């Protein structure tokens, strides 16, 4: 009897030790993940040209020089920020609207051809972007939308995954509410805007966050479509700073790239901190039920 208790005590102690080791592993891993972002922040406040770029845990001579250099340089950083915010916002608003409209119809209406149209949406969802990249560019070019924000926005707003997601959410809207509104004589548009949309508000917030993050993080398509320097987004502009820092320019200036990185990260990080709940919900959608 006593021996058994002793054994279980030993087991508990071992378990506590292994918990400690596991937490240590997690803490080290998290520090490793945050380390690059920390050094980017530190690096943006110190001069990092050539031999001055050796690592420092805290900036020895903190300065705002990189930020001033960036703003006073020939790079229109303010315009890049405007491009990023404008493109992401417009894309998000339009994508959410389209997803809601199509999701609603797929969830609540029955009409000839529904099955086939829905199958079309699902099929396009599974194809990688390289499957359409080149003709997409040629089409956008023919439409005269190269070097136009719409060339970036239009191809992104009919997003199969968003349509599919909103269909799932719209299915949870009670049919009785829609029927009641119909009996009351509400038109289709009124039912959609005043009955259905308000009921799926939290889902709309989640979809909006995913869409914004996706559009903000996009890079390849922006690089292809926006050729004019004053139309670049933060990502495209930053990529040029990075490629300059890695040897494209005669003077290698990491501080400038890091300051650019900090400016590019600031809006989306603030959004993340403010709406963390919706970000997390957006990530788990589709993967985990409930």
């Amino acid at each position, binding site marked *: 009897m006593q021996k058994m208790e002793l054994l279980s005590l030993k087991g508990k102690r071992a378990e506590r030790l292994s918990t400690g080791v596991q937490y240590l592993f997690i803490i080290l891993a998290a520090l490793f993940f945050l380390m690059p972002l920390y050094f980017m922040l530190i690096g943006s406040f110190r001069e990092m040209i050539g031999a001055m*770029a050796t690592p420092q845990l805290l900036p020895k001579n903190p300065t705002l020089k990189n930020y001033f250099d960036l703003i006073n340089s020939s790079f229109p950083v303010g315009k890049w920020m405007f491009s990023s915010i404008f493109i992401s916002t417009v894309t998000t608003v339009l994508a959410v609207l389209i997803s809601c*409209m199509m999701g609603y119809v797929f969830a609540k209406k029955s009409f*000839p051809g529904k099955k086939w149209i829905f199958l079309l949406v699902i099929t396009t969802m599974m194809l990688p972007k390289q499957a359409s990249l080149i003709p997409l560019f040629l089409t956008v070019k023919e439409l005269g939308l190269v070097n136009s924000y719409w060339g970036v926005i239009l191809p992104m707003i009919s997003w199969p995954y968003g349509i599919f997601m909103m269909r799932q959410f719209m299915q949870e809207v009670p049919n009785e509410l829609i029927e009641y509104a119909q009996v009351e004589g509400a038109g289709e548009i009124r039912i959609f805007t005043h009955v259905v949309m308000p009921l799926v508000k939290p889902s709309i917030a989640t979809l909006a966050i995913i869409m914004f993050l996706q559009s903000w993080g996009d890079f390849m398509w922006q690089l292809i479509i926006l050729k004019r320097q004053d139309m670049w987004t933060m990502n495209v502009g930053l990529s040029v700073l990075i490629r300059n820092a890695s040897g494209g320019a005669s003077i290698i200036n990491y501080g400038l790239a890091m300051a650019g990185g900090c400016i590019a990260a600031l809006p989306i990080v603030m959004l993340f901190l403010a709406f963390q709940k919706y970000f997390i919900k957006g*990530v788990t959608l589709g993967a985990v039920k409930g």
Partner: protein
Amino acid sequence: MNEKKPTLRSILIKQRWAYYFLLPGLLLLVVFNVYPVMKTIYLSFTNYTLTTKDFIGLANFTKLFSDQKFLQAYANCFKYVLLLVPAIMMFSLLIANVLVRARPWIQSVFRGAFYLPTVVGGVVIAAVWIWIFHPLNGLLNYVVNAFGGEAITWLADVRYAMPAVCLVVLTWTLGTPIIIFMAGMLGISPELYESATIDGATRTQLFFHITIPVLKPVIVFVLTMEIINVFQLWEVVYLLTNGGPSYSTMSMGFLIYNTAFVSGKYGLAAAQGVILTLTILLFSWLSLKASKEA
């Protein structure tokens, strides 16, 4: 009242709003999604450039399969998948498994920490890693030197360039699978664990005999998603190594971009796109099939 069977016409009129609601989205989907996919297949059989657009049959494909650069980029994609996907799956499952037992506020702090690199995006992450890898003044060689090692040219050495790119991609993308697995694990009924614990199961046993089997559909979903993502990898390669040294880090996504938008060979790039798409479809089908049989 005699009820007539509704004609197609009357249904179409009655349900016209459904079509009005679908129309804008469907139009965009066809113009920017469906039509380009079909056109890619057509373009892959042409020598489409700014000056030529002739149908040349399978010439692009036969050319690609004897093109050393293409074959290397194609092989590299499999190397990326083999290096990255197991690492992503293993680390995210382990980290999630520890975090689900923590207090809610600890969970949310760590979830935020692991997801932050994904939020800021690959381009921002690359802005700092390009310095970390710098052979003379970078952080990594500073650490290597501190332990008495020789400085390494991380991004210019064939042996280290691909692992270096993989490390950056890992820190950039691990947040998403961690969050998904945590949500999945938090959804497992605690009673399952309790009854097994009473039977004397250790934590390792619980992980392999309860967590993994119950979570299987989620694991398959993440696995498929990660394979698809890694096959399309390109921005970190573009920013850190430009595909070098001597093509050792070139990915298919980057090669397609170069072929089309640097060399202007749209037909050839379309053929590369077709091969990549078929490969991705094959592997997502395989991982779904394997999961159903297992």
